[in-house]
């Protein structure tokens, strides 16, 4: 009954700008750098984060044709530049514009279809009961007591059916999925067939022959409503109950930093499994922080910059040469890579040393800043004391509400907190406003300084942060199998968003054979094992 389109978090907030709020101060730089990016799209290296088709085609085409001017027109894109962020914004905005139009059309279409079918289904039993009275009232037998009792039963069953169908099918959808819900479509077809066949029978055997046995007609209508309730029961089992029993264990890995979680899912189609995984993702995975990846990217750039192999003779010998000719071309490539590897091994590479000392230094710095922060916050909290009820009436002097109290003690800890956030590269996740709000919240609820600090010391799940962080997301499901097919052992699919992707692998939960062993409570007996030594 519902066909949903691509998942976009913008269903409620389509009016807002989707730019990166967290980089508000860099918006000027974004506009400047866009012109540069169009040049860099000509030949793009692998270490640019967004691998969207918008850039990918150009990259492939660019590398195949090596013209002589490629040195002049290439811009090397490193991972730490602002350019990479603005490219993400372009991609994101383009995608959103494409999809928001399609989204509304599909949703309204399916909604109308569902409403029409629902009306048809509800009005059919009523029509069955009312039509004889309208068409041949004089021939109709009067309705006895049993027959009128059946009216009540029809009424209540229709009411229950109405509520149940609303509960199952007509509530607010949580997400938009790429393809039609197979089970819902099948159920729609089933219901349609069912109702049509009942109408056929009614039309041929009752309307044409103008049957006078009204009780039989009422019982016929009751049987229709019963059958519809059974179909609804089937719908509940197929749509809700079947997926509750865990059958598969999925392993979700984030591609940027390797965060891994495992979940148990029931028998679902791939798209519904993806939806369940995304809901868990927002609660369980620590927030994606691109600033933490810059160190490994700079190391990778250094490796690439170390040794370059140039082919000064031009392109490889092309042409239909078989045998020794082809081998020569392949051999040339092999020998080049071997030469590179050998040279890299011989070179004295001390980057591991640097990494070790850098990490030790960073650890020390973080701990020092954390110690200062903890002390500052604890001291700040001692300046605030909650006033009791009696004191409030007596001394109306310097009374503050939580927000003012937070603003009063915030300056004493602001510097230490800012330094700590800078060291752990979290400063873009928290704004001053949000910190003060959190402080007021903690003061209101009598939390200790440690409770206040906990959300800054460790990166929490994405839901913990401001809405911009998790509303600005559109996910693409990419899989080799059809997304409406069910999960199987060994299914692998990807959930891509602009900054990273989640790799999901499935494993079937094995069949567990359990046997029992009875232990008699009296069978717990012990002996003393001695080893004594006696001197004689």
């Amino acid at each position, binding site marked *: 009954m519902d066909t949903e389109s691509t998942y976009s978090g913008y269903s409620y907030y389509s009016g807002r700008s989707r730019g990166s709020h967290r980089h508000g101060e860099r918006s000027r730089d974004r506009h400047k750098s866009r012109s540069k990016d169009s040049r860099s799209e000509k030949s793009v290296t692998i270490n640019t984060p967004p691998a969207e088709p918008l850039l990918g085609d150009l990259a492939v085409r660019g590398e195949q044709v090596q013209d002589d001017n490629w040195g002049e027109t290439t811009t090397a894109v490193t991972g730490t530049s602002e350019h990479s962020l603005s490219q993400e914004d372009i991609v994101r905005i383009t995608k959103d514009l494409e999809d928001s139009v399609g989204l509304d059309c599909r949703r309204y279409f399916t909604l109308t279809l569902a409403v029409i079918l629902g009306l048809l289904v509800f009005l059919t039993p009523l029509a069955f009961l009312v039509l004889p009275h309208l068409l041949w009232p004089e021939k109709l037998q009067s309705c006895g007591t049993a027959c009128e009792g059946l009216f009540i039963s029809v009424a209540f069953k229709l009411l229950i059916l109405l509520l149940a169908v609303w509960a199952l099918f007509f509530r607010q959808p949580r997400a938009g999925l790429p393809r039609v819900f197979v089970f819902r479509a099948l159920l729609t077809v089933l219901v349609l067939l069912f109702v049509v066949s009942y109408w056929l029978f009614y039309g041929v055997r009752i309307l044409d022959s103008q049957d006078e046995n009204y009780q039989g007609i009422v019982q016929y209508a009751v049987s229709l409503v019963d059958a519809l309730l059974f179909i609804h029961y089937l719908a509940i089992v197929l749509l809700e109950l079947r997926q509750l029993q865990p059958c598969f264990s999925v392993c979700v890995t984030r591609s940027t930093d390797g965060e891994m979680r495992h979940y148990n899912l029931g028998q679902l189609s791939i798209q519904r499994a993806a939806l369940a995984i995304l809901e868990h993702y927002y609660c369980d995975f620590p927030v994606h922080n691109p600033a933490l990846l810059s160190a490994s990217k700079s190391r990778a750039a250094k490796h690439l910059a170390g040794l370059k192999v140039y082919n000064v003779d031009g392109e490889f010998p092309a042409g239909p040469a078989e045998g020794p000719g082809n081998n020569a071309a392949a051999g040339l490539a092999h020998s080049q890579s071997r030469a590179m590897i050998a040279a890299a091994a011989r070179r004295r590479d001390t980057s591991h040393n640097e990494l070790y000392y850098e990490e030790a230094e960073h650890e020390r710095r973080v701990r020092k800043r954390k110690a200062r922060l903890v002390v500052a916050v604890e001291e700040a909290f001692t300046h605030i004391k909650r006033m009791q009820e009696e004191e409030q009436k007596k001394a109306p002097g310097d009374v503050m509400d939580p927000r003012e109290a937070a603003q009063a003690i915030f300056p004493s800890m602001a510097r230490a907190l800012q330094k700590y956030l800078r060291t752990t590269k979290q400063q873009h996740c928290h704004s001053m406003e949000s910190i003060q709000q959190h402080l007021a919240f903690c003061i209101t609820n009598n939390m200790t300084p440690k409770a206040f600090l906990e959300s800054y010391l460790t990166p929490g799940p994405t839901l913990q942060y401001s809405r911009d962080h998790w509303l600005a997301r559109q996910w693409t499901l990419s899989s080799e199998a059809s997304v409406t097919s069910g999960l199987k052992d060994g299914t692998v699919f990807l959930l891509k968003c602009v900054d990273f992707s989640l790799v999901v692998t499935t494993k079937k939960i094995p069949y567990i054979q359990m046997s029992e062993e009875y232990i008699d409570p009296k069978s717990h007996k012990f002996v003393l094992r001695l080893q*004594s*030594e006696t*001197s004689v």
Partner: protein
Amino acid sequence: MTSMPGQPVTAVVQRIEIQKLRQADNLILGFSIGGGIDQDPGQNPFSKDKTDKGIYVTRITPEGPAHEAGLRMGDKILQVNGWDMTMMTHDQARKRLTKKNEDVVRLLVTRKSLEEAVKQSMGSGPRQEHCGTPSNHKLMH
């Protein structure tokens, strides 16, 4: 040494005669024993076979009567004054060794080095017929 209960035990043994020393009111021999059929054989550090529940010498006081008589740490005591020690509880063994009316105890002990010495001397040639102090002794049970 085999460890099947009820089977005859074959071993190369040494006879040791210890004179008890009088100290205050007691007669002491100057060593400590461990093991016994009521003890845990797995904790015995001296036995080759960890199911052997025999009586072993665990400590020797230096310059004591046992040390001077030639007893060494790790020896397994097979007989005391003719009484068998291979199937004794710890307490029974202690009682046999500390009888107040005996001044002297004659032990039959065995140790690993005895067997090796015999093998060496037998292997060096058929010329040597008997090989010093250790004597072959078969015990039938």
